[in-house]
């Protein structure tokens, strides 16, 4: 019975349950960064990894429910994918280019096209760089 009392309570317990399913190898990235996301796709029994290249326009949720929205423009048509960050089907995430943005959600990019939809590159150091 003592064991039960040592155990985390309330939300902490739920966090403990989620923990083994969280990834620890997610690179630090922010909204505005260009990402290469490797997505596992099962096709006719075979599994392969498809890379989705685009700009991260939103990071939402916390813990195991955290998702990212990645946007790219394909043949003039905007494509957005909402990806669960900790899903096993997300094989890899690579930061290709850092963006300097002043918003947490870049929904304004949807109304813009071509040169207006650019995001300036961020060359500054970030706190997460120090290691």
């Amino acid at each position: 019975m003592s064991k039960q009392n040592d155990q985390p309570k309330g939300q902490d317990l739920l966090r403990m349950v989620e923990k083994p399913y969280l990834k620890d190898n997610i690179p630090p990235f922010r909204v505005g960064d260009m990402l290469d996301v490797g997505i596992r796709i099962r096709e006719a029994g075979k599994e392969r990894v498809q890379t989705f290249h685009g700009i991260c326009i939103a990071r939402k949720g916390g813990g195991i429910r955290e998702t990212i929205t990645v946007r790219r423009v394909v043949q003039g048509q905007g494509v957005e994918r909402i990806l669960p960050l900790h899903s096993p089907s997300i094989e890899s995430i690579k930061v290709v280019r850092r963006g300097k943005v002043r918003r947490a959600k870049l929904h304004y990019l949807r109304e813009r096209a071509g040169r207006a939809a650019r995001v300036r590159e961020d060359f500054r150091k970030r706190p997460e760089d120090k290691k």
Partner: protein
Amino acid sequence: MVKMLIGEKKGMTQIFDDSGTLVPVTVLQVGPCVVTQVKTLAKDGTDAVQIGFGEAKPGNVNKPLRGHFAKAGVTARTVLKDVVPEGDQMPQLGDELRVGSVFDGVSHVDVIGISKGRGFAGVVRRHGFSGSPATHGGRFGRHGGSIGTSATPAHVLKGKKMAGHMGAERITVRNLEVVKLDADHDLLLVKGSVPGCKGGYVLVRKALRR
């Protein structure tokens, strides 16, 4: 061994399964339960095992029960429940029953709990009546409307759905899939929701119809 243990609903979350699907799960603290009494047909009129769950402050337990726990050699518990023993291995007085041993290899469970009380609920919430439209001449609001005819049968039919007390009743949810069993922490993760509030007591048994 026994078929059923007492537990506590801890809350809900989601976890990924092997194929990468997010599965909604309810986290249940199941056990450890302790055998407080072994009843026999000859002595007590029934073959059953009484199990206890939850730490109770000794001061909150009345004297007869305190004696009852002392007899079993266990600390005071908050919930007691008779369960049916199973197999040839009879649990002994004072034995500790854990999820790891009772629910090992079990794929589905039934969960019994007390649903959240909704007080005196109207007919829209309680029975899913649609109420009247807010506009376009609707004029009876959230009432149930007519409850029957006039001269025949001249009374309201039994079982007519009307407003009244809702919730806070015993609800059994059958065949919930066991997603994960964490024997170290006495946790059972079942797919889907379970009646009752967080911290509410639940009974968890091996699925009857599977």
